[in-house]
């Protein structure tokens, strides 16, 4: 073959290969169009069980000045028993989006884990849901990672849970075809970045680049000669090596800041005010600033103290509200996420209409959340985002929106809704969007 013919044929073959339709693993031709509304979504599960009475209906005054407009004074007995908080860093967030005052958790047991699972899978649960097992249907994280184009690494999907018990397993499901391969990076920062955590994990053996390379070679050599069965990477999600290096560097940085006292009171609040919810949001902000994930879910839980202390419930509601306001401020001050992020806020369940027999320091009765109580199914919801995407300063007073609508809404916002292989029962929250 002449050289000129060879070059021509090679060029034609290359052009043909490049021009051929690419069949994706999902079976469709070409990549998804990915008509995204924004490139980042943060979902804040304002969890622990909140009644609309104390939130959007302001029965005890405006306890949520970070989210809700208004200066309604707080009921005197509560006001005298709660922490002194500075004014929120931003104006009330409802001005930056749409508030749903009659959101619903319509079906399934009104337990925290059920509520979380519903919010993260877009499906109601029933009594068969085991607290010790992963969700039976794909989570938001798996749907996002499996059906986004191009592929998304777990560095783009984070689940920041308030505790390292029970809730961490919500980062992926047992559903066939999904699972850890598409799960989120889960982190329970208040347990990990703590005094005991620092003692156990804060001072690892460090290697310079040359030694690290040598050790990697040794490991490869040893693994090459190993013929045992079973893989050690079978438990949990697994980041590629280069992403693990980034996560380790982030952890090292957090531990150094922790040891230097920079995490003791990072928001400059009065001593003792920063509670677990605030700390969880603080570390979610750190993850956000470091990795700028496209999808992050962070939860709070402090209001669940309401089972035995109504006054502290109101106090923790205020702190959680303050933290979410701070979160939005950080989003708007993080390059790459500012004006390109939708923040969705919703409790997972409500609480009962009538008090239990446990009285607090002010004689207020505690509140449980039982399945047969209608008020434990009444929530609020809020969607914030850029003015060209999200309806600003809008309030929906009628019954509109359910917990199961959050997953399909995020799917549409991030442009993978048309790629889903499973049918979701919920609806896109159209009322919130332009």
């Amino acid at each position, binding site marked *: 073959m002449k050289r000129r013919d060879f070059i021509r044929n090679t060029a034609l073959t290359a052009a043909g290969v490049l021009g051929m339709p690419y069949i994706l693993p999902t079976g469709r031709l070409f990549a998804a169009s990915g008509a995204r509304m924004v490139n980042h979504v943060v979902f804040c599960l304002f969890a622990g069980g909140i009644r609309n009475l104390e939130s959007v209906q302001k029965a005890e005054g405006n306890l949520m000045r970070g989210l809700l407009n208004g200066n309604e004074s707080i009921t005197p007995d509560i006001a005298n028993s709660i922490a002194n908080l500075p004014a929120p860093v931003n104006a009330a967030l409802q001005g930056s989006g749409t508030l749903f005052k009659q959101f619903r958790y319509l079906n399934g047991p009104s337990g925290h884990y059920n509520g979380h699972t519903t919010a993260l899978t877009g499906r109601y649960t029933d009594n068969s849901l085991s607290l010790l097992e992963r969700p039976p249907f794909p989570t938001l994280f798996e749907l996002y990672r499996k059906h986004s184009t191009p592929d998304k690494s*777990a560095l783009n999907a984070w*689940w920041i849970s308030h505790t*390292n*018990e029970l809730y*961490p397993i919500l*980062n992926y499901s047992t559903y066939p075809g999904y699972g850890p391969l598409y*799960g*989120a*990076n*889960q*982190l*329970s*920062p208040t*347990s*990990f970045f703590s005094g*005991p*955590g620092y*003692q*156990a*994990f*804060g*001072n*690892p*053996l*460090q*290697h*310079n680049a*040359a*030694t690290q390379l*040598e*050790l990697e*070679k*040794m*490991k490869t*050599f*040893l*693994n090459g*000669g*190993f*013929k*045992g*069965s*079973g*893989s*050690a*990477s*079978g*438990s*949990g*999600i*697994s*980041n590629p090596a280069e992403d*693990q290096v980034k*996560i*380790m560097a982030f*952890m090292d940085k957090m531990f150094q800041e922790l040891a230097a006292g920079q995490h003791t009171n990072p928001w400059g609040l009065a001593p003792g005010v920063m509670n677990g919810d605030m700390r969880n949001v603080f570390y979610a902000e750190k993850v956000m600033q470091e990795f700028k994930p496209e999808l992050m879910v962070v939860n709070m839980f402090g209001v669940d103290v309401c089972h035995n202390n109504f006054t502290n419930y109101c106090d923790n509601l205020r702190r959680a509200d303050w933290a979410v306001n701070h979160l939005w401020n950080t989003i708007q001050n993080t390059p790459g996420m500012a004006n390109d992020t939708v923040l969705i806020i919703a409790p997972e369940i409500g609480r009962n209409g009538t008090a239990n027999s446990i009285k607090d320091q002010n004689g207020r009765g505690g509140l449980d959340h039982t399945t047969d109580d209608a008020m434990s199914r009444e929530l609020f919801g809020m969607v914030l985002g850029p003015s060209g995407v999200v309806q600003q300063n809008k309030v929906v007073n009628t019954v509109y929106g359910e917990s199961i609508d959050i997953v399909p809404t995020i799917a549409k916002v991030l442009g993978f809704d048309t790629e889903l292989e499973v049918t979701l029962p919920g609806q896109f929250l159209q009322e919130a969007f332009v």
Partner: protein
Amino acid sequence: MKTLLSTFILLLLLSSCKKEIENVYAIDPVYVSQSGQKNNLKSDLQFVSIAYSDLFGQQISVQELNALLAGYNSVGDKALVIDLIIRNLLVKPGIIKSTQQDMQNDPDAFIDATFERFFVREANEMERWYFGNSIKANSQLLPEDIYYALMSAEEYRHY
């Protein structure tokens, strides 16, 4: 008559003196000759406990185990957190380790001892040669670096 006499003598011999059998019970070191014989994956709890025992020569305390497991449960990427556990254990005071000088002076002895300690088997010739060369060629390598390499390998996750 002759047969009867022979039988009588035989019975007498058998019943007269019986050799006393002395049973000796001891544990001999058993080395697995090939890594391929390890087919069971250690559970994470087993892994942490065994890693601690291998490094410190004693059982991990409940308090320390709880601290490690709390961290383990706080991070979704288990391979990453296991690596962190190993690297943190390797700098704690009290681990049993050779000196760098001993390692450099007699790499073969160090390699044999290290493989027996962590892999519960003898190093094969190829491994002895490979690690011997690495130790000689990299004067900055510390014994704990070699421990780290072995503890990070797939074989160490199995028994």
